[in-house]
């Protein structure tokens, strides 16, 4: 028994190293920062020449102006962190940044991205400040989008909790795993982003199944208590997060071929193409899982196991098989959440850890172990998070969301959709 656990731990370690060490890390010469300025109005693109761009950092400053085709290139002397700024005064009349605050973009020039492509999204000058109502509409959309991303993590967490009772503190690292795997395949191996994302989800699902088989299943067999397992998951989370940090470093990375496309306006709401992808993909994934749980045989079995594992087992349901499927689906959902989250937040070793508390808040809010609860709770958290910035500084929005969690637990300890049962 002992040997098996150690072997399993070792196997996790080696599998991770094998995956990550393959990412090319060779340094090369020719570090540069470049970009192409295009004015995007109504779907058309016109190059914007004659705009001054300045790169500073690592004791180096250099300016250039964009050429007739809108392109600009500034070679930098060394790898490191740089700030790229655009001189708004040199923009032609009627052209402005679609996000007026993005005058300076920070970037890091280091392998494998020694040629950093910086996009300043240009469009019709929108100097007018949005009305309160328009801001609220925009925030509502962003809240729904972020809520859906949280829901991808929360649904998996809730399914795993429902069937095994495990409060998995390492769920955030599954989210990170999905994004890092996709980043490795995309930026490291040069696969197209879509292919890398699909493979990323598959890898994360395998990671989940592997985790269940090598760690959680033996622990369940041995009768390890739920709190002991919770603490094991904390250890696993610390282990995985620092392994990610070890192999990837602390910087944020972006997928390649990821371009900051201009926003499309739907009434008061500006939506980027990646937002649309994020929303549609996450709704499809959530719907597929919810329908699967409600309608299929396996879904029924899952609900039976959630309800009462012993009874389900005596009714002839293979509980371990159900749990394995739940781990695969839960990990795949979390991985997808991480992949999509990286569209807006970039990839970093602690991205999953940073949203984990919000995921927990969502699950607890909706009612631990309930499927609709996880989704509703996530949307509430996402909406509250974004809309609260109307009133409080955006750096404190997480504080608001976590406070709501505590307040709702005071009133409805079983969560919004949880069954009314004794929880204490």
């Amino acid at each position, binding site marked *: 028994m*002992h040997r098996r*656990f*150690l072997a399993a*731990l070792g196997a996790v370690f080696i599998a991770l190293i094998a995956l990550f060490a393959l990412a090319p890390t060779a340094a090369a010469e020719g570090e540069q920062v470049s970009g192409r300025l295009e004015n995007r109005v109504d779907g058309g693109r016109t190059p914007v020449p004659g705009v001054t761009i300045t790169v500073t950092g690592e004791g180096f400053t250099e300016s250039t102006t964009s050429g007739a085709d809108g392109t600009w290139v500034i070679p930098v002397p060394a790898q490191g962190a740089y700030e790229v700024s655009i001189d708004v005064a040199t923009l032609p009349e009627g052209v402005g940044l679609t996000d007026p605050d993005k005058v300076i973009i920070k970037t890091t020039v280091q392998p494998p991205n020694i040629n950093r492509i910086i996009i300043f999204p240009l469009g019709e000058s929108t100097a007018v400040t949005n009305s309160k109502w328009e801001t609220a509409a925009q925030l509502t959309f962003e809240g729904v989008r972020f809520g859906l991303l949280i829901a991808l993590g929360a649904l998996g967490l809730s399914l795993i909790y429902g069937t095994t009772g495990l*409060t998995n503190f390492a769920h955030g690292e599954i989210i990170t795993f999905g994004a890092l795997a996709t980043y490795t395949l995309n930026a490291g191996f040069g696969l197209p982003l879509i292919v890398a994302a699909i493979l990323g989800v598959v890898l994360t699902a395998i990671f989940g199944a592997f985790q269940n088989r090598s760690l959680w299943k033996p*622990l369940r067999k041995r009768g*390890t*208590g*739920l*709190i*002991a397992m*919770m*603490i*094991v998951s*904390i*250890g*696993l*989370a*610390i*282990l*995985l*997060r*620092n*392994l990610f*940090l*070890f192999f990837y*470093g602390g910087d944020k990375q972006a997928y390649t071929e990821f371009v900051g496309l201009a926003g499309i306006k739907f009434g008061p709401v500006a939506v980027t193409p990646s937002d649309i992808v994020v929303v549609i993909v996450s709704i499809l994934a959530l719907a597929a899982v919810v329908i699967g749980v409600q309608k299929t045989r396996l879904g029924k079995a899952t609900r039976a196991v959630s309800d009462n594992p012993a009874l389900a087992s005596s009714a002839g349901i293979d509980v371990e098989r159900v749990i394995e499927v739940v781990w695969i689906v839960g990990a795949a959902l979390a991985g997808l959440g991480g992949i999509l989250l990286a569209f807006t937040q970039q990839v970093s070793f602690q991205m999953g850890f940073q949203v984990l*508390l919000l995921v*927990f*808040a969502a699950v*607890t809010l909706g009612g*631990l172990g309930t499927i609709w609860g996880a989704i509703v709770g996530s949307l509430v958290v996402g909406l509250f998070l974004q809309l609260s910035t109307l009133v409080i*500084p955006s*750096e*404190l929005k*997480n*504080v608001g969301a*976590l*406070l709501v*969690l*505590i307040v709702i*637990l*005071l009133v409805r*300890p079983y969560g919004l959709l949880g069954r009314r049962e004794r*929880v*204490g």
Partner: protein
Amino acid sequence: MDWSFIISTTLLAAFGIEAIVFGLAAIGLNLQFGYTGLLNFGQSAFLAVAAYSLATLVSQMGFSFWIGIVVGILAAVLLALLLGVPTLRLRADYLAIVTIAAAEIVRLLLRSVTLKEWFGGSDGINDFSRGFYDLNPIAIGRYTIGPISLSQDQLFIIIVGWCLVALALLVTWLLVRSPWGRVLKGIREDEDAVRSLGKNVYLYKMQALIIGGVLGCLGGFVYALGRQAVNPDFFGTDSTFFAYAILILGGAARVFGPVLGAIIFWALIQGSDVILRSLIDAGVPVVSLMTASQAAIIRFILVGAGLMILMIYRPQGILGDRKELALDAR
């Protein structure tokens, strides 16, 4: 390899500020988790409110050192009440999630730009410890104890720190052997049984949370005074988890468990780190492929793996009794 450097660094970690701070945090957790079975995942918040009460009152508002200490302890009591009232009636995992959320709220508020005027934002605060070091009776100079050399101020805070540890251990020892302590253990083993004996379980849990929080908050003072600075990101969830690792390593529900755990934990952490660094400096093959910053991460990987392995194979730690510690909860 400079063995004397390795040994002195390891010893200083094992008996220095880190061991004291996390020892005190773990002593508090021991009362809450080890004896009462409360899953307080927000211990770092207790350290934070104490450290920041002292730092903010002295540095930003000009109060004296002792007022800072008193307010810090009161703040820890208040935090325990705030956390306990909504959650102590709930199941163990709810308490865990709410306490971890509350600790994160505290950290985010402390590092926010909005409240920078009081808490110094992400830079923290650093000019508040004069009042403490003015009390130092030790003559100015370097003091050599074995391979370690300390300034009079370092020596002072380490002595005061270990006195606090001793005091906290004495309090724990007196409490857990009293009838009150037996009720706590009863709650850990079977809450309903204790309730049926007519005990107010909620009140006992609340008292354990408060006393554990106050014992832990002493660690916050030692951290602030030892570093002569407070920084919000020290009070993240990882610090709480380190305190859990220490408690489980030493042995939960044993009076000396947390202290033994803290000494061994920091000796292992710093010892492995400094050995790894000197191997890299010496150009040892394979090991030298790592950069210095990667080498510094290794110890956290070890903490994670260590916590898992401990919890799976020896949940009672070094001193604990497996039969006594029914980690398994309701």
